[in-house]
């Protein structure tokens, strides 16, 4: 149900902007999703097809770009990205410090839409 509630929110955002653009159809949606959000792209499209039925975004293609979480080092203040899927510790690649802070929260951003 995770994907279902998020796709409904995506549709709402997309339709609001499409209307403002006086678009007749939405063909493609580019979504930037934090890797922290743990979404299954296949289910996203499946649910989107379901919730968008009958709207001008029906049959729009969801393009999902995953973004690795960003960290900042507390010692040398370098910024870097780490995929938490592959590590069980976050270490600064510049100075080796294990004291780091997550700087970007998990989110779903509708980056752009292709309309006609």
């Amino acid at each position: 149900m995770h994907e279902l509630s998020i796709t409904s929110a995506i549709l709402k955002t997309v339709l609001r902007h499409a209307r403002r653009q006086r678009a007749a159809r939405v063909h493609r949606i580019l979504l930037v999703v934090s890797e922290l959000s743990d979404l299954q792209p296949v289910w996203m499209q499946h649910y989107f097809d379901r919730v968008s039925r009958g709207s001008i975004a029906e049959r729009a293609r969801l393009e999902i770009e995953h973004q690795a979480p960003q960290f900042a080092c507390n010692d040398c203040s370098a910024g870097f990205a780490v995929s938490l899927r592959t590590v069980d510790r976050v270490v600064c690649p510049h100075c080796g410090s294990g004291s780091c802070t997550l700087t970007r929260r998990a989110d779903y951003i509708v980056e752009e839409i292709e309309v006609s």
Partner: protein
Amino acid sequence: MAETRIVRIRESVLRENRVQASILRKRLAASGVVMVNLMSSPGSGKTSIILHTIAALRERFRIAVIEADIDSTVDADKMIAAGVPAVQIETGGFCHVDAAMAQAAIQELPLNTLDVLFLENVGNLICTAQHDTGAHVNVAILSVPEGDDKPLKYPVMFQAADVVIVNKTDYMAIAEFDINAVRQRIAVLNQAVTILPVSCRSGEGIADWIEWLTARITSVAGNR
């Protein structure tokens, strides 16, 4: 087919909920009510923590509970049996409570006769943490049998929390659970968080939790 054009949007789909949540948070504070949202996996101890907290604080605060257990009123019944008003939220099968659902449940409660409102969120570590409910205090519960690797597997939860209760410490000896590893993993995600080891079974650590929560409630209520 007409020519297509690309429109830049750059908008978070969680934005609308965040706006609604902050309105609700202000409204509750204005009525003198502090909302405490409890999040965890199924069975980590949300209901047990709330029941301990009611027992400890019922003389001091007027308490009510919002229950969001999927398709079950078992937990709401336990709260009513403990003598506090409880409402069951209709999540419609959803995996989290959002600000609109919390708002709807709150309509059924007499706000002006309450000080503290607990929200037992749906047992889920991902979606709940992404949806601001309007609560003033966010509590994440991690139970020892779930393992010490959870913080980096479910970072959103530990990032959203003001306090992490490590519950079921009575299992610590048999579960090979490294609390220091948990502290380090959480620190990477959230440096402001307080970590409190607790056992709802033995009562160990409950007093620390009550003390932490009381201070939080007092500070939120004092800031309105």
